[in-house]
């Protein structure tokens, strides 16, 4: 009774991504809550950093990425809650679905959610900090997507780990934030260059740095994630 040809790694990942996106759509109440949460954090940062608009203008890149970072902790924590309900993760492992495909799917689904959050935050930020994307929307979108990718890859590995450990809500940010400092540095720098112009043409190098992080974290996650899920 050998089963007919099972789908390959990437096709399995595609099936699982569709499943995750469908799940996110079905529980979009949670996604909405996440978006409004990050909006409120953005407002909070603006108020906390003071009404002086020149300072807010300079800090706009940083506030955007801090808001996304906080939202990512919630999104990542949630992404494995749905897998733990009814032991669905074990069900996938037994299907069998290759754990690496599970990683790709989960990380891409989390990225999509974060990009959505970023997309909603951006217009609000442009208004709040009275900044405009002088280097063009295309580059801004590029930074947003690359940054969210660089957050989701290690985030997915760490949320899989902490979803089984005790006091997971503390453990995930504790593990994730130190790791994401270079990513946030690069993303915030690139974003503020987009807002304030790039006289010394550094945007390309910061974007390259961000792309480099992605290569490192995605390959690390791809290689190590099976060890996290398999007992």
């Amino acid at each position, binding site marked *: 009774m050998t089963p007919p040809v*099972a*789908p390959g790694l990437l096709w399995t990942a595609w099936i699982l991504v569709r499943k995750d996106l469908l799940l996110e759509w079905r529980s979009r109440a949670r996604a909405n809550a996440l978006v409004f949460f990050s909006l409120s954090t953005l407002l909070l940062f603006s108020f906390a950093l003071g009404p002086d608009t020149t300072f807010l203008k300079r800090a706009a890149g940083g506030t955007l990425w801090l808001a996304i970072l906080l939202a990512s902790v919630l999104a990542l924590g949630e992404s494995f809650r749905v897998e733990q309900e009814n032991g669905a993760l074990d069900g996938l492992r037994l299907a069998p679905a290759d754990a690496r495909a599970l990683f790709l799917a989960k990380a891409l689904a989390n990225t999509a959610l974060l990009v959505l959050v970023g997309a909603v935050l951006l217009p609000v930020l442009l208004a709040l900090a009275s900044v405009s994307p002088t280097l063009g929307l295309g580059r801004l979108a590029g930074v947003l997507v690359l940054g969210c990718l660089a957050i989701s890859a290690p985030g997915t590995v760490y949320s899989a780990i902490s979803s089984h450990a005790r006091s997971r809500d503390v453990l995930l940010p504790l593990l994730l934030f130190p790791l994401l400092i270079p990513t946030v540095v690069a993303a915030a720098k690139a974003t503020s260059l987009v807002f304030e112009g790039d006289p010394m043409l550094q945007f390309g190098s910061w974007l390259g740095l961000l792309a480099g992080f992605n290569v490192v974290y995605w390959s690390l996650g791809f290689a190590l994630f099976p060890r996290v899920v398999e*007992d």
Partner: protein
Amino acid sequence: MTLREGCAATRNTTGRALRAFCAPSLLDVSNALEFHDVSKRYGRTWALARLSFVLPEGGSLLLTGHNGSGKTTLLRLLATLFRPTTGRVLLFGKDAVTERETLRPRIALLGHSTFLYEDLSARENCVLLARLLGRPAGEADALLERLGLGARAHEAVRTFSAGMKKRLAIVRLLLKRPALALLDEPFGELDPAGIAEMEEHVRGLSRAGATVVLATHQVEHGQTLCTERLHLASGRAPPA
């Protein structure tokens, strides 16, 4: 050390090459399951302690014992979800840890957890599994129909009763057409009609040549279904 064990025991690449070289006939795997001195530990407690037993292929094993005796742990080990702390588990002659990827397509587990996504509909859950197995979605629909879930196939699993979720889990099990079916308390949450139907499914699986391991503390139902019996007491199999 028989030739088969010799082949199975060598782990390194030469072993794998040797196994590939051995003609399958030489290796007619008589035993579907083998536990060699298996223990499993959670934190401080030993869920399974130094357990060894063998089950021939196509056989069916009734696993009895009070709650916490290690039944679920044993099934999860058989389902390759766990790695034993000590000892070795062999399924169809293959090591359940190193070769789980090749074993999993042939194993199905009906556990306490139903593996279902509450926010997806019954059909979406089954079609997801069918796609992962490389099977047409129609097969999932046919099984849903056969088990009386056709009418509510498009409703979210969240709205299902425990009995219906169990039935949906059975659909997932049958969809895999397993060579090894692991049933953990299958009669729980089922009304008498459901229990009779479940017994029929178990017989169907045995008839189809599958090896069945059925764990329950409702011995009266399992009695007629299984050829062999193993009683567990706090993780050990006391001498019969």
